[in-house]
């Protein structure tokens, strides 16, 4: 069977290429092994995530490689937190104003309120 000019199966060629890798000299295979071990010793380690702990009052700085979706979710959480805390502060201020108004009406303000 002769080799067809246009229809040679690449797999027949790669089969011989695979055989050729077994003919690599021991010196070269040893050098390749050394290169591999050197690369493994420098493998990039996993990154960590940022975490907050309110009880211990410490910040555990961990960073992780999050996807864009996770960053969006984290951003939404931060936005909700910011908006919520702002609303809470607004409520607190209104309550404080209301308390002051009540105190004025009941003439129950401390003397410091009249001192400039």
């Amino acid at each position, binding site marked *: *069977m*002769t*080799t*067809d*000019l*246009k*229809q*040679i199966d*690449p*797999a*027949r*060629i*790669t089969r*011989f*290429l695979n*055989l*050729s*890798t077994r*003919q*690599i000299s021991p010196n*070269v*295979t040893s*050098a*390749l*092994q050394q*290169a*591999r071990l*050197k*690369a*493994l010793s*420098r*493998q*990039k*380690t*996993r*990154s960590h*995530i*940022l*975490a*907050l*702990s*309110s009880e211990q009052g410490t910040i555990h700085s*961990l960073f*992780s*490689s*999050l*996807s864009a979706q*996770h960053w969006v*979710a984290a951003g939404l*959480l931060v936005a909700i*937190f910011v908006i919520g805390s702002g609303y809470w502060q607004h409520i607190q201020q209104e309550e404080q104003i209301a308390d002051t108004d009540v105190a004025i009406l009941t003439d129950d303000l401390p003397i410091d309120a009249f001192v400039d």
Partner: protein
Amino acid sequence: MAWFRAGQTIICYHVYNNQGEFKLSSPVELDQFLSSVERRAYKHALFAVHDEHAALDIVQDAMLKLAEKYGDKPAGELPLLFQRILQNTIRDYFRRQKVRSSWLTLFSGLQSRQEDEEFDPLEVIEDEENRTAPPAPDQSLQQSQIIAIIEQALEQLPARQREAFLLRYWEGLDTTETAEAMGCTEGSVKTHCSRAVHALAVTLRAKGVDLP
């Protein structure tokens, strides 16, 4: 699973890859991958640069770059990443060689040559290994001769055709992955592969090789 605490609330989440699996390549996985690819990578580089030492350096550089920059990627992404790095490292080698030979040519023209110190800049990049040496005596002569002919034919291919052929058929990358590794379009990959296969078929037939 990762977590963090906000006040009295603990928020937990998982880091997933595109397949919905939480899996980054471990040292064992990276070792397994590099073990499986290192010999082919060496052959890739050798076909391109025709120098054993340079080919070894190229493979070592590629392994280091993969481990240092992408060692935390999922194991499934390592093959394509490595092939891209390998091809880029081979190109970097040729760029350095071009610059080096330009400087050597310049200096050789400026320096006065003495009888016992003749210097040929081409010797710097000349392959010191005789790769047309006969195969080892304990191996099948016909098989070794076919291998030598195939390797010679691959070396004679234009670089892009050889890259496309090896990535597509030897590394098993699909057309899309091959295009990404080579930095070209899928159409170019198909063209390069088609021409490579045709050229190899012509060469093998001319040398009377009948692949079993």
